[in-house]
């Protein structure tokens, strides 16, 4: 395909490649430790750009949240008391189905896992559970809306979930990295890679003679 469609149709992926190159180049060749951490942040942002751009669909698709009218079709103006009746009825029907399950009355917020009571929950295999989950779908308070949804209307929710995790993990790594930078600054007096390596070099000719200050400090106490 000619360059125009190649470039236009996949602009996100081109920018993602450029950002990755910038990020990995910064991590490797920047001298300042904080610049290296920034390079890492940009590198992770590039991967997030890749994931989110593979989740979006054609123009006009909606954000991955069900619009209100789709969920409660019968809410156009009528009083919603009959909705409560359906749920009560469905709830009742559901109750009979569930009595077969052996229930334990005590509600112990199990904090210490080792201490929990020995209780064999004769739980049938998870396959059967899956059937129960599908079974449940027919009992809920409103008509199942699965068939009335056209999957192409909404963006793919899965990459969004993965990227929520990736962003938070990125910030956690950033926090730990910055605390390490502060300790490095306090020990060597600089956050420039070359100055730190010099400080390490003349602190000890090799690993052998270095007497770890902390260990010595700890022994003195």
């Amino acid at each position: 395909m000619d360059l125009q469609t190649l470039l236009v149709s996949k602009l996100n992926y081109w920018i993602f490649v450029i950002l990755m190159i910038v990020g990995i180049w910064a991590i490797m060749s920047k001298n300042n430790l904080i610049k290296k951490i920034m390079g890492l942040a940009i590198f992770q942002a590039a991967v997030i750009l890749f994931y989110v751009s593979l989740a979006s669909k054609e123009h006009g698709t909606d954000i991955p949240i069900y619009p209100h009218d789709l969920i409660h079709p019968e809410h156009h103006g009528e009083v919603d008391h009959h909705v409560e009746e359906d749920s009560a009825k469905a709830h009742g029907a559901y109750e009979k189905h569930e009595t077969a399950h052996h229930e334990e009355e005590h509600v112990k917020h199990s904090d210490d896992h080792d201490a929990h009571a020995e209780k064999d929950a004769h739980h049938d295999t998870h396959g059967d559970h899956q059937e129960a989950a599908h079974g449940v779908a027919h009992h809920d308070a409103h008509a199942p809306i699965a068939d009335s949804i056209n999957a192409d209307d909404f963006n793919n929710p899965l990459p969004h979930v993965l990227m929520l995790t990736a962003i938070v993990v990125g910030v956690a790594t950033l926090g730990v990295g910055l605390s390490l930078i502060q300790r490095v600054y306090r020990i060597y007096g600089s956050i420039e890679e070359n100055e730190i390596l010099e400080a390490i070099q003349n602190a000890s000719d090799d690993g052998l003679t270095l007497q770890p200050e902390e260990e010595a400090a700890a022994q003195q106490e």
Partner: protein
Amino acid sequence: MIWSYDAILLILIVITAIVSLSIKDLISATITLGVFSFLLCLLWAEMGAVDVAFTEAAVGAGVSTVFLVATIYNTTRKSSD
């Protein structure tokens, strides 16, 4: 998901990324990284990823910039490259 709006944002993102890595003064480099993150948040929102945009704004741009400035406060502000 207007393509042209997308393209402008992406170009701006690449520019702010490169600029934030090349500024010598660390505080302004951090602020540029903040701009980079907020542009990313704008891009996610525009691409339909609303939750990711919210997280990027709050966690990615907001808190990381605060952490970076806090660290620069405790170390040096000037950087050699």
